[in-house]
C-alpha cells in the first residue's frame, strides 16, 4: 500500500513535470489576480481586506488546481492501471500530491501577493503554519469533491456548487487565524485555530480513505 502510494505520487509528479502548462497557468492566474488587486487598490489596502482577498485568490487557485485531478483517470487506459492499484492508495496519493501542489502554490502566491500589496503579517511562523495546514485542508476536501464531481456530466459547475459550502467555514477559520497573525506574534494564541485546521485535515483525509473505494468501483 505505502509502496503504491509512493509510486502513484511519483507518477503524478512526473506527469505534471511533462505537461508543465497546467502549473504555469495557475502561477499566471495568481500573478494576474494579484496585479489586478494591486491596480484596483492602488497599492493601499487595509489589513482585513488584504487577508480576505489573499484567501479568496488562494481558494480559486486551489479549485482550478484540484479540478483537473481526476480528468486523466477517466480514460479507458487509466482504468486498466487502476485494476492494479488499490483505490485507497489512489486517493491518498492524490491527496498528498494535491496538498504538496497547493502548499507550493499558496506560498508562491503569498510571495507574489506581498510583493504587490505589502505584507502586514507580523507573526510569520504562525502564518506559514496556517498556510501549510490550510492549503492541505483545502486540498484534501477538494480532492474528494473533485472525485465526486468527476462522476457527473457537468464537472466544473458542480465542483463549485459542491465545494463552496464545504470550504466556507474553513475559509472563515483561515481568515480569523490570519487576523490573529496580524497583531499577535505568539504561536499559542493562534494555537486553537491551528488545531482546528489540523483536525479538519485528519477528518477529511479519513473520510476520503473510507469513502473513495465505493466511488471508484463502477
Amino acid at each position: 500500500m505505502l509502496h503504491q502510494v509512493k509510486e502513484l505520487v511519483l507518477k503524478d509528479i512526473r506527469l505534471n513535470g511533462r505537461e508543465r502548462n497546467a502549473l504555469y497557468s495557475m502561477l499566471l492566474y495568481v500573478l494576474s489576480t494579484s496585479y489586478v488587486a494591486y491596480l484596483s487598490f492602488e497599492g493601499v489596502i487595509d489589513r482585513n481586506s488584504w487577508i480576505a482577498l489573499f484567501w479568496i485568490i488562494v481558494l480559486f487557485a486551489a479549485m482550478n488546481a484540484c479540478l483537473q485531478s481526476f480528468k486523466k483517470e477517466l480514460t479507458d487506459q487509466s482504468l486498466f492501471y487502476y485494476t492494479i492499484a488499490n483505490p485507497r492508495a489512489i486517493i491518498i496519493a492524490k491527496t498528498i500530491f494535491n496538498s504538496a501542489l497547493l502548499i507550493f502554490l499558496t506560498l508562491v502566491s503569498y510571495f507574489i501577493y506581498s510583493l504587490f500589496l505589502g505584507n502586514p503579517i507580523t507573526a510569520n511562523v504562525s502564518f506559514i503554519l496556517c498556510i501549510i495546514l490550510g492549503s492541505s485542508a483545502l486540498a484534501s476536501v477538494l480532492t474528494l469533491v473533485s472525485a465526486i464531481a468527476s462522476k457527473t456530466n457537468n464537472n466544473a459547475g458542480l465542483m463549485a456548487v459542491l465545494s463552496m459550502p464545504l470550504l466556507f467555514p474553513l475559509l472563515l477559520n483561515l481568515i480569523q487565524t490570519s487576523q490573529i497573525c496580524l497583531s499577535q506574534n505568539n504561536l499559542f494564541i493562534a494555537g486553537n485555530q491551528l488545531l482546528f485546521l489540523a483536525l479538519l485535515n485528519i477528518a477529511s483525509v479519513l473520510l476520503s480513505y473510507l469513502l473513495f473505494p465505493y466511488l471508484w468501483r463502477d
Partner: protein
Amino acid sequence: MQSKWWKILGILLILYSIIGGLLFPVPHLNILNETIRNLYFHVTMWFSMIFLMLFSMIQSIRFLNGFDKTKDLKAEAFASTGMFMGLLGLLTGMIWAQFTWGTFWVNDPKLNGTAVTMLIYLAYFILRNSIENDDSRARVSAIYNILAFVMMIVFIGVLPRMTDSLHPGNGGNPAFGNYDLNSGMRMVFYPAVIGWILLGVWVAQLRYRIKTLEINKENI
C-alpha cells in the same frame, strides 16, 4: 414501523407542546420576555433536523453496504424532510431575531453555520439531479451525504463554540441547560423534541412511499 402508536404519540406530544408552550408559565428575563417560548418551536426544529439528517446518513451507510436502492430512497426522503425542518428552524429563528436583536439576520458564527448547512444539503439535491444513471446517482449521493453530515456536525457543533456569538448558548449568553431553562420548561421542551422527531420520521416515511410508487409506476 408499520404500527400506528408512534404516529399518534408524535401528534399528541406536538399538541401538548403547542398548548403548553403557549400557556405554561415561563421565567421572565430581560429583552427575551415572552419570546423565550420560541425555544419550544425553534430549537426543536434544529433537534429534529439533526436527527433526520443522522437517519439519512445511516441509510446512506447502509446503502453502501450492499447497494440496496431502497436505502438510497430512504436517505433522500430523510434528507429532504430534514431540510424542510431546517428551513422552518431558520424562519422561526429569523422572526425571533427580529424581536430580540432588531434584525432578521446578523453575521454570527452560529447563523453562518446553519446557512452553510442549508447550502450543503441544497448541493446534495443538485448533485442527485445532475446524474442520469440510477446506480451511480445512488452511490455518489450516498458518499456526499456522509461527507455532508460530518461537515454539518463540524459547522454547527464545533465551529461556533470556538468563537463568541450573539446566539443564546454561546459566549456567555443564556440558553438551555442554564438558569433560564427551569424544570417547567424542560417538561415542555423534551416532549416537543420527541414529538417533532416522530412527525419528521412519519413525513419521511410517506415521502419514501410516494417515491417508491412513482418508480414502480415508471417501471410498469
